Structures are given as structure tokens and as C-alpha cells.
């Protein structure tokens, strides 16, 4: 799995034989998923960064990372 910045600044996730376009929050979440942080750490950092309530982001982060882990693209 590889996170990629396109020339226009948008983010793309490259997975085996697949291309996923990411929104800014998803891209930021994945950039933080480096093995040293758990879902809650990532959600908290994003909430700070985007100045949003913790709870709203936590659910999205869990769904995104859970989905990628289930497909075998991410180890938790």
C-alpha cells in the first residue's frame, strides 16, 4: 500500500492492482498510520489539526483503517 501525492495536490492510495482517491482527512489519517499510533491517537491528532470534535473523527478513522486492515492492506 502506498500513499501518493498527485501533481494537483490530491491524494491517492495505491494498493495491489487498485487506485483509491482519498479526501484530505483520509490522506492525513493514513499518513499518521505508521505503526506507532493507534486509532485513537490518530483521531486525536486529526481533531487537533482540523479543529474538529474528537468523536466525529474517531468513528471515520476506525472505519477507514478497519476497512483497509480487513482487506489485508494494513496491519494493526
Amino acid at each position, binding site marked *: 500500500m502506498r500513499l501518493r501525492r498527485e501533481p494537483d495536490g490530491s491524494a*491517492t492510495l*495505491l494498493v*495491489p492492482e487498485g*487506485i483509491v482517491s482519498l479526501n484530505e482527512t483520509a490522506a492525513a489519517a493514513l499518513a499518521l498510520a505508521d505503526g506507532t499510533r493507534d486509532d485513537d491517537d490518530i483521531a486525536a491528532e486529526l481533531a487537533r489539526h482540523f479543529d474538529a470534535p474528537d468523536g466525529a473523527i474517531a468513528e471515520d478513522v476506525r472505519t477507514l483503517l478497519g476497512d483497509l486492515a480487513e*482487506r489485508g492492506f494494513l496491519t494493526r
Partner: protein
Amino acid sequence: MTPAAPPRSLLCELTYRCNLQCPYCYNPLKLALNEPELTRAEWMRAIEEAIGLGVVQIGFSGGEPTLRAADLVALTKCATDRGAYTNLITQGTFLDDALLDALLDAGLAHVQISIQAPERELSATIAGTDVFEKKVETLRRVAGRDVALTLNCVLHRLNHDSLPDVLAFAEREGIARLELANVQFYGWAYRNRAALMPTREQVERGAALVAETSLRLRGKMDITYVLPDYFEELPKPCMHGWGQLALTLTPDGRILPCPAATSIETLVFPNVRTSTVRDAWYGSEAFNIYRGTAWMPEPCRSCERREIDFGGCRCQAFLLTGDAAATDPACARSDRHELVVAYRDRDDSDTAWSPRRLDPALR
């Protein structure tokens, strides 16, 4: 019409040569090339240009791509160095330690290894040669390394009943991604479709078993089960639309909108030896002819699904009706749907098949 979006994905068919003879291969019947295979320098030029246009996913396939081992390593490095994600689609019989090391050094991101069956005897019957043990060895070699791995098994009537054993084999080997694709009928598979067409019972039993196994192995193994479109009432969204996302290069440099496009004998495809990839993608008749929705006949033209499945598969439309612009007969709304129904529901007494082989007499 809005201008075409740039290509994102490129499949490089490095050679049509292969040491296996699988009757379900989608390669054309005519495996002998009129022109020599592209040289390494020609491949590099095409790959660099494609990446420059917007390609981020590159697959190396064939035939068996590892038959051009040194070129495969060089091209993997060329693509990786320019930021592309690289996939090797192989049957695994030549992927030894030295080649795997070299490919991983070159930046290879993903290996897809195919098996024909979950055991030696049936595997040899289908592949025409006894290579199952070799494949298992390769599978374990790749699984032990830091690279994404997918196990693939094409399902058809000859091996469908061994699906429970395919699943057990994958689980035993600790496979994280398993792709079970019911055979699609192009090239050799089209020639052999009488013998390969699964029964409805096989397809439905398979779907139920995969659903159950996916649930049980959730988080451990991701299983894709590709339904055969002959058994569905709606066509597949082939290539996400003609000339929308992907292109394929054949071993002799033809630039195709889809890996099976040489089936369409009425089209002339541009070649990287005489055209740039840019001109082929944006300017050639072969890429523009079925782009968008303006070319569609009824019932596609006014169908609410026209931007979902794009009228289905152009190659299948041509193979079944002789007209590549026809609605894909796999669609229940096609006035030629009976062609698919007749084939799907026929009696299964016809079981002869031809092994894939290079025969210069074929045109």
C-alpha cells in the same frame, strides 16, 4: 463530449510465451506474433511515456512475464523509480530466489500467483504440465518476503467442485488476499467455453461457500469472488468504460483499451512502434470509438445504467454478435440475450477442449 481523462493503469504483456497450456487463457488464439516482441528499450520508452501521461499502476503479465526475467527487473525498476506501483502477474514456475531478490530490489510492490487447482493431479490436467509443487514453493517464498501477495485461481467447470479445497489450501498457506475469478470467455477460453462453462449449481454453491468463508476469516483473508456475467442479468462494467482508465500493451507493441480487445477484428490498434501513447489514448479511432455514451445503441442509450456499466463488454458483444457496438448480450435487456442463455443452459455433453499452444497456422 468532454475530453478524455488521462490513463491511470497500464498492463504490459511482455510475451505471449508460456510453459503452461491452460485452456481458460484469455490470450488470443494466434499467439505467434507478426512482429518481434518489443525490446527492453521500447518497453521503457512506452512505460515512461505512460507514467508521464498519468499512469500510476503498472502490471506485468503475459503469457508468462518472468520468461523475460532480466527485462522484467529493469522495467520494474524503471516504473518504480518514476513513482508507479508495480504488480507482477505470474503463474510462478520461474520465480526463484535470485529473481525475487532482484525484483524486490527493483521495487516490486505486489505479486499475484495463480494456481489451476488445489492439488497436483487436477493442476497438471488443466495446465498440461506437472508444476503444482513448484508453485507452492514459489508461493511460500513470496509469502516470506516483504511484498504484497495475492493468490489467484480461475474457476471453471473442470475445477469448480474443488473450490472448498482451494479455500482450505489458501487458509493453510496463510494467504491474506485470494482472488477467485470465474472464467471470462475471450481468446482460448472462448474457444473452449463449452467445456469451461460452469453449471449454475457450481456458481451458486461457490458464491455461498465464499460468503460463508469470508465471514469466518474476516480480517485474516480477503476473498474476491468474481461472478461470471453469463449468470447475471446485468453486464459487467468492463474496464470502467472503454478508454477511461486503463490501457494494455501487447508483446508486439499494440496499444489496446482492454486486454481482450484484439478479439474485435474490425478495429485497427495503434502501435508504440509507430505512435506515441498520447496520440493512441487521446487521438486514435480505436480508443475514441466506444468512449463515453454517444456511440451507444438502444436500449443502452436511454438506460439509467449507461454510466454504471457502459453497455457492458465490447469484446463480448463482438464475439457473440459480430457487432462490437451492440449491447453486451450478457445484459437481460439486450435483444440478443438468448445467445447467452442458450449457452449457459445447454446440456453439458460437450466437454472437449484445446490446450493453449502456439500454432503458427492459426490466424
